[in-house]
């Protein structure tokens, strides 16, 4: 095809496009079906969370964090609460920690299931999407029971959690975990072995380890390159060090590795949940927290392993009940930066495969 140079065409993928999962715009210049240039345009979902936070008490910021990565709200909740707890040097009761671990890992499973479904949908397979949503629905109903919301949980509080598990909830989680662990092989049968799928994702969108680090990537995108970096292991927070689990790591950094690590992480997260539900202690669910939280003046940063990478909260306080400045390190936004490099030279069909595998959530990109 090199001999045939046809005219270049500028194509606006998004902001309204079935595969941008939200309002993300990608201005691609294509030559035939080949991408010559790609220019991501973000900000269509910008709500000014960071600025709004400067005018809100800490407890009021929590519902706003729900809306960052809206498919993994529990993890966002935790990132903020954890930073404030770290700033206050606060002790969190054991039961609260266990409940947090359970909901966070279930949330990770739900988030990865959503990735799985939508990614396959982008690649043209309809059924995995609906299967994944059936499982995700069960997790959401569990969350609905514990905190009364299906998507924007507002569950965690500084020093603990808002609600204790309702009677029988822990057992339900145990049942679900066992059932879900049996379900994972179904996805391998349906998707992982499918030759058409493999041809679509193998060797596509390869991120080298150097690039991954240079672009400050994190989460599955970085781990797919073979770099073993999981904040739950490398900078332990909460009580992750008390469980036995492994960090799945890829080899080639291609889309297939990213897909495969998602599935493996689902297994690992279920593993953690299965261990956690067996030893949830009794006790209070919230520590001794002053009614109005005032963070001592200073700068604080804590990063946790979000569903999409390092979810960091950088907090500057001047001692008042509201943050002076709140900076959120949103992993989707950071991971997105490599997109242009990955896309140039690829075809339109690969654009979807690559964009899907980088796994961005627009609420988090635009914040």
């Amino acid at each position, binding site marked *: 095809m090199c001999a045939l140079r046809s005219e270049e065409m500028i194509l606006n993928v998004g902001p309204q496009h079935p595969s941008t999962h939200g309002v993300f715009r990608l201005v691609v210049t294509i030559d035939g079906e080949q991408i010559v240039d790609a220019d991501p345009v973000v900000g269509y979902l910008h709500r000014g969370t960071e600025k709004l936070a400067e005018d809100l008490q800490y407890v009021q910021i929590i519902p706003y964090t729900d809306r960052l990565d809206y498919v993994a709200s529990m993890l966002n909740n935790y990132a903020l609460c954890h930073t404030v707890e770290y700033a206050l040097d606060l002790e969190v009761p054991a039961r609260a920690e266990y409940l947090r671990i359970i909901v966070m890992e279930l949330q990770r499973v739900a988030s990865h299931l959503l990735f799985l479904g939508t990614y*396959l949908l982008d690649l043209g397979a309809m059924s995995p999407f609906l299967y994944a949503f059936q499982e995700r629905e069960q997790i959401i109903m569990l969350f609905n029971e514990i905190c009364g919301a299906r998507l924007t949980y507002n569950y965690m509080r500084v020093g603990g959690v808002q609600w204790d598990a309702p009677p029988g909830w822990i057992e339900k989680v145990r049942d679900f975990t066992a059932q879900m662990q049996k379900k994972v092989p179904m996805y391998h049968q*349906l998707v992982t072995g499918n030759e058409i799928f493999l*041809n679509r994702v193998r060797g596509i969108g390869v991120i080298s380890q150097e690039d991954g680090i240079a672009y400050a990537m994190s989460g599955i995108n970085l781990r797919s390159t073979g770099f073993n970096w999981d904040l739950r292991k490398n900078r332990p927070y909460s009580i992750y060090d008390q469980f036995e689990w492994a960090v799945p790591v890829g080899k080639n950094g291609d889309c297939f590795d990213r897909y495969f690590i998602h599935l493996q992480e689902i297994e690992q997260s279920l593993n953690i949940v299965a261990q956690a539900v067996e030893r949830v202690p009794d006790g209070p669910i919230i520590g001794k927290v002053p009614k109005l939280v005032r963070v001592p003046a200073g700068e604080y940063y804590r990063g946790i392993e979000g569903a999409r990478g390092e979810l960091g909260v950088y907090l500057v306080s001047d001692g008042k009940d509201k943050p002076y400045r709140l900076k959120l390190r949103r992993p989707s936004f950071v991971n997105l930066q490599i997109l242009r490099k990955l896309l140039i030279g690829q075809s339109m069909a690969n654009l979807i495969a690559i964009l899907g595998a980088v796994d961005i959530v627009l609420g988090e990109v635009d914040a």
Partner: protein
Amino acid sequence: MFSWQATPLRPLTLLGMLIGVVVVLALVLGIVTYLIYFERKVIGWMQGRIGPNRVGPLGLLQSVADVLKLLIKEDIIPANADRALFLLAPVIAFVPSFMVLAVIPYTASHIFTANLNVGLLYYIALSSLTILGIVMAGWASNNKYSLLGGMRSAAQMISYEIPLGLSVLGVVMLAGSLNLVTIVQHQATDRFGWYIIPQIIGFVVFMIAALAELNRTPFDLPEAESELVAGYFTEYSGFRFAFFMLSEYVYVFAISALATTLFLGGWAGPFLPSWLWFAIKTSAIIFFLFWVRATMPRMRGDQLMSFAWKVLIPVALFNVVLTGALSLIG
């Protein structure tokens, strides 16, 4: 035999022809309506859903309602579209899809079937005309996604016409005729029985190429929703969109009917009436098409092309050679 060429054209004969056409058209519309319903039900069941169930008993009138909705919708023609071609394209796409039905022998007594000596060639030739309609639609819409979809479909359908044509060659060699009626009759007397047995390679190639010709998953690149929004019919609405849908589903029916005729013995079968046998076999193939759609992701354009040229065509050629050797020995 009735020869339309030699018989003087009387008003009555003309009327008879017209009535026949209208009857077949109505029949086809009914089949397409329930084909869509069947597809939605089957895919629903495979995905833990129940499919359409609101309009009419068991949702049986859902497709009727959908078609009615499309018919009464406003006919939107984009301001910068190429008006003439935009209007013409759905017609070019639909007419051949309806015309190919003329040669398919539905029953033992072929009322609606043209006993054409080149029936198989007629099918393949006419179905290639639809591509022109699709490409025209993609170009005339003046939409970049449509253009890409049109180009993809042109490349894809032309590529897959070759393995499709080659895959049926084995059947033609065994039957010694391009006439579909003769092919069905030959299968009744052939020593291997239905041609799916001696022509299993040809059947597999035929099914794959047929899926590609139909633009259905895993070969639905021209209308890839997640990439090209809706491909060549992005800009179409109302009854022009309905025309594309109609032609797509008529082809689903037609290609399944052709596969039945070529490989599954057509209307032949014990006990049951011949039309029922034909319906059962065709439905089985249609079900397979839907099943594949519920399972597979989409292929990528370049893989699609290399698959057609590097795998399917050699395999189909090998099948031709094999069949030739077989019939020499036999």
